[in-house]
């Protein structure tokens, strides 16, 4: 009799304990957007209630698109038309939102293109051709555009960011798809480019303002003659790219201040939510941006790592790095509690300076005035953020 009562108690408890626990943030998979595009209120209120993270995916003219919705962003659930009509043209994408007003919550829109864009970032323009915001360009095989949609009605156009100094990178140089005119305009628009990229050298365009006036730091530009690995196992640095400066040789001069543009983002995780360690959903920013592109001050002779460390401290962003003597550099394990291997076995942090992913550690990259530093999270060994060559050595 005693045991029967105990068993009853047990079964009742087990039935209820599953339902009574508070819901954690939880990735609940993908929902297909229905034909007419309208997702019902009940779906959204359920997402809100469960504090779930859900992707809504749809397809238009062979272009897949995805909305990543975080339950805690939803305030007033209602019927929402999530459908978009997408027209993909070379070097531009036209979006026509079927919804008539703002969703009521911001959500990241990911557009899976059927082509590859040779650019580092893209810009979203509205129907009057005003730039609205930037979009990040990721994707291993085909380009994926990610941006936070703050306006969800009318038509928009996304184009590669031509003014971006990093538009011409090594891959572009090999493929030679960009017209000479484009290149000239790029060079003109670009006050940041203070070294010759291979593309410019091949086409024989002289870059004016090859400024040596603020180069009192001791980094030198690679002439491409290197054939062997250096003593820290770094493959030859491509021609035109800065050679590593060993941190022990760098002299930091706090008298001279320069500025660089710095950003930290992890939008690739939003495209691979299924792989993400579910405990980390709490720290994943809904828009994928941890530190928006900001002009920051650094001192002469500082490396990318020094600046990252200072910015994280100043802005109270968590960052962990470990010193790796073999590569004579710090290795960034995690930023904002998003660590390497948190989103699949091929994930981790990479950095890009002026469109190039250096093939050496961030403590050995000495910064120059006006450079654009981006820290990006990769889920595919760099291939999805356009930096696979830095990991595999171009093989």
């Amino acid at each position, binding site marked *: 009799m005693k045991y029967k009562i105990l068993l009853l108690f047990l079964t009742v408890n087990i039935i209820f304990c599953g339902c009574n626990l508070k819901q954690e943030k939880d990735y609940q998979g993908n929902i297909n957007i229905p034909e007419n595009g309208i997702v019902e209120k009940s779906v959204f209120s359920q997402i809100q209630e469960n504090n779930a993270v859900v992707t809504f995916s749809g397809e238009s003219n062979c272009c897949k698109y995805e909305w990543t919705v975080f339950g805690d962003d939803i305030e007033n659930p209602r019927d929402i038309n999530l459908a978009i009509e997408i027209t993909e043209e070379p070097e531009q994408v036209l979006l026509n939102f079927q919804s008539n007003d703002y969703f009521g919550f911001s959500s990241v829109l990911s557009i899976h293109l059927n082509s590859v864009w040779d650019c580092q970032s893209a810009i979203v323009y509205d129907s009057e051709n005003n730039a609205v915001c930037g979009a990040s360009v990721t994707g291993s095989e085909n380009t994926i555009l990610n941006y936070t949609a703050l306006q969800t009605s009318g038509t928009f156009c996304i184009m590669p960011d031509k003014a971006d100094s990093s538009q011409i990178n090594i891959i572009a140089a090999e493929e030679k798809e960009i017209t000479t005119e484009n290149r000239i305009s790029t060079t003109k628009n670009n006050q940041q480019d203070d070294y010759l990229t291979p593309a410019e050298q091949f086409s024989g365009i002289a870059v004016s303002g090859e400024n040596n006036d603020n180069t009192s730091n001791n980094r030198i530009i690679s002439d491409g003659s290197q054939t062997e690995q250096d003593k820290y196992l770094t493959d030859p640095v491509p021609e035109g790219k800065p050679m590593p400066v060993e941190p022990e040789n760098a002299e930091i001069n706090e008298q001279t201040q320069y500025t660089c543009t710095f950003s930290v983002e992890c939008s690739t995780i939003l495209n691979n939510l299924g792989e993400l360690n579910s405990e*980390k959903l709490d720290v994943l920013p809904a828009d994928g941006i941890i530190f928006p592109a900001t002009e920051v001050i650094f001192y002469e002779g500082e490396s990318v790592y020094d600046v990252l460390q200072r910015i994280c401290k100043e802005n109270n962003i968590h960052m962990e790095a470990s010193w790796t003597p073999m590569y004579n550099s710090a290795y960034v394990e995690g930023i904002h509690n998003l660590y390497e291997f948190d989103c699949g076995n091929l994930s981790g942090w990479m950095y890009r300076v002026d469109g190039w992913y250096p093939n050496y550690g961030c403590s050995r990259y000495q910064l120059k005035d006006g450079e654009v530093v981006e820290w990006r999270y990769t889920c595919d060994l760099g291939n999805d953020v356009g930096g696979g060559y830095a990991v595999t050595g171009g093989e």
Partner: protein
Amino acid sequence: MRDTFSRCHPIINFLFFGLVIAYLMFIMHPVMLIISFLSALSYAVYLDGRKTVIFCLKFLLPTMLTAMIINPAFSHEGITILCYLPSGNPLTLESILYGISSSVMLGTSLLWFRCYTIIMTSDKFVYIFGKIIPALSLVLSMTLRFIPKFKAQFEVVRDAQYCIGKDISDGSIFSRLKNAVRIFSIMITWSLENAIETADSMKSRGYGLKGRTAFSIYRFDSRDKSILCCLLFCGIYLTCGILADGLKWRYFPSVKGVLAEPFTISFYIVYILLCNIPVFINRKEDKIWRSLKSEI
């Protein structure tokens, strides 16, 4: 102190330690860890009195403190940044809490194993597994008993050497070293010989042969039955609790988990019951013994 639990059927003893140590390893919930730690400590003190206290102060406390400090020094995950270490990495609240939890877990497991070596004597172990896996159970019981036996024999040898004036406590460093090496050599010889002798002795008695029976005084009586029911109930209940996420607790990136939900509290109660079964049995037996004594 008389321990009634050790006089229960070996299967009960083994099942108890199996359950307690398994739950200790799989549940990182802080309340559960504290319950297990206090139970293990109280039982170890009950069994071994002063020796346990000395063990705790001399060995357990330093080990736990080291484990506690090492974790935040090498793990920097967590959203609450307290300050920055000289290496430039943050010191986080979460890594400190995790360090404390894991050190409590380590200490608790040492205490449970201390109780295990006292309760699960090698004859009990061989009784349970002798029939199923004779060779392995002999090897296991020999290895598990090796360190305590080695320690005891070491003291004997050291005393003998002390009597003939070849001690490690005085003389020049060189002669001390020489004596230490000799004692160590004696110990190695003894342990090898002892192992072979044990194996030979078991073999000559036909250990592991088909049809061989072994004498045992263990009887599965009604008391054992009720304890077994209790153990199984606690085991199933807690396993269901783990599977239903009723004891979920995470440390990274932020500390989060179920603490005071009504059903979680029921798991705490069941866990207290499970961990303290030997103490309850002993209490009950003591009471009976006292009342019998007073009647006389």
